């Protein structure tokens, strides 16, 4: 039984899932089809309701 995990998609959800699993000690393979991670959130300026910078 492998204790590695595959996460498909490097947007905010994929990133959070990967970080949680990695912090728990699992080896994560994060696959993203675009040249960089970040997904749609990287295209946002600020986010509601705090108006924080999206990046």
């Amino acid at each position, binding site marked *: 039984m492998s204790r590695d995990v595959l996460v498909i998609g490097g947007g905010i959800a994929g990133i*959070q899932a990967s970080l949680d699993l990695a912090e728990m000690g699992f080896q994560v393979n994060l696959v*993203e089809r675009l040249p960089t991670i970040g997904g749609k959130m990287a295209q946002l300026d600020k986010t509601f309701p705090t108006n924080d910078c999206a990046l």
Partner: protein
Amino acid sequence: MDVGRHPKIRLLAYSEVEKVDGELGEFRVTIRKKARYVDENKCTGCGACAEKCPTPVRDEYNLGLAESKAIYRYFAQGIPSTYTIHAQYCRNFQPGKKCGVCSKICQAGAIDYKQQDQILEVEVGAVILATGYETFDARRIPEYGYGRLPNVITALELERFLSAGGPTHGHVYRPSDLALMAALPDLEKARQRARKGLEKFEKTFDRTSEEFFPLYESGELAGEDYDQWAEQVRAARKADGEFEGLRERVDKIETAHRLVFIQCVGSRDIRFNRYCSGFCCMHAIKEAIIAKEHDRQAEVFILGMDIRAVGKGFEEYRNRGGRESGIQYIRSRVAEVTEDADHNLTVWYEDTKERRVKQLAADLVVLSTACQPAASSKRMAELLNIEVNDFGFFKTPGYPPMDTTRPGIYVCGCAHSPMDIPESVAQASSAAARAAQVLSGSESACLAS
């Protein structure tokens, strides 16, 4: 950045999953790492290559509102920061033409035109799907004018306009005005060329064109040479006139003040997606508040059926939008958007409270497009042998809500269903917990139906 640096995360960007065999506890996955034609161990992300690249390409990150190059970085702070060559646009990969400018310029010697795709095989115990969403193509609603009327844009495009790092550095200009501004340099060049054309005549005849022309018109000077000179004078004056005319218009250009948001574009719509996309009401309110911050003269209208501000702090945010930013929420259904000769827009809608058809003038119309399953969903579902539901998102038949139709495969974020950022983050942690739970040895029947 945390992801890029974590020792337990193997980041495979610019990659795709090609095959998945096996089952919970022992999935065998084939991943194709696509060739960037740039060595990621050598590339420093300095950007010299993109600067010198002669091939302009549509900038996808900025949704076509700006230009990128055939060698590019998706966005400045992206991780990994390695540049990538679009093989389909790069001249070096087309038959015949050879370029190689980037390779010459690169001080790190990172360009590698011979790079191949890499195929990797990994074995994993669980799979988490976080493939996100894509936006509805607003051209499918032709009466709203997207793709035809320049000043009708989507909410995501407005994000790029509002962004300090975006194509207009945070100034919300109407695309029709941007086009005017973009035309100016060419007219300037034409004017200069025409002016230059006069110089040789002035030299030959040792006279300025201003002196010459009235004499020609009065008939005092005649002849073929003078005819040519006069032609050139007329051409130069025309070029002058065009340039000055456009310049006057451009000087008067202001950022878009009247913004009208149309909600539920492609959502809650019997023709397209019947469901509600969850976050677009809040997204519009946020963009309206930010637009007002950038431009105190901005007047914003949000035309929607219901304004769904259901999350934590959202109703307060919506009220703040109304109170402090003067957003006017109008319960309505929009029929059509039209424009006049100057690309000023009119939005025709039914005010459903008053049951009357009304019009609203707008500088810019913003379409809150639906959140749809990612284009890759169907292929992913086949690859992973899982089902999709009626809406096209991955099917999660019961409890826990992250479980797909196959054990060991979990879904989170918008791949599951439209949701906003806090929900996506929370659900991502849920999927991680589920994977961890299952890989810790006990396949949990925790409420599995």
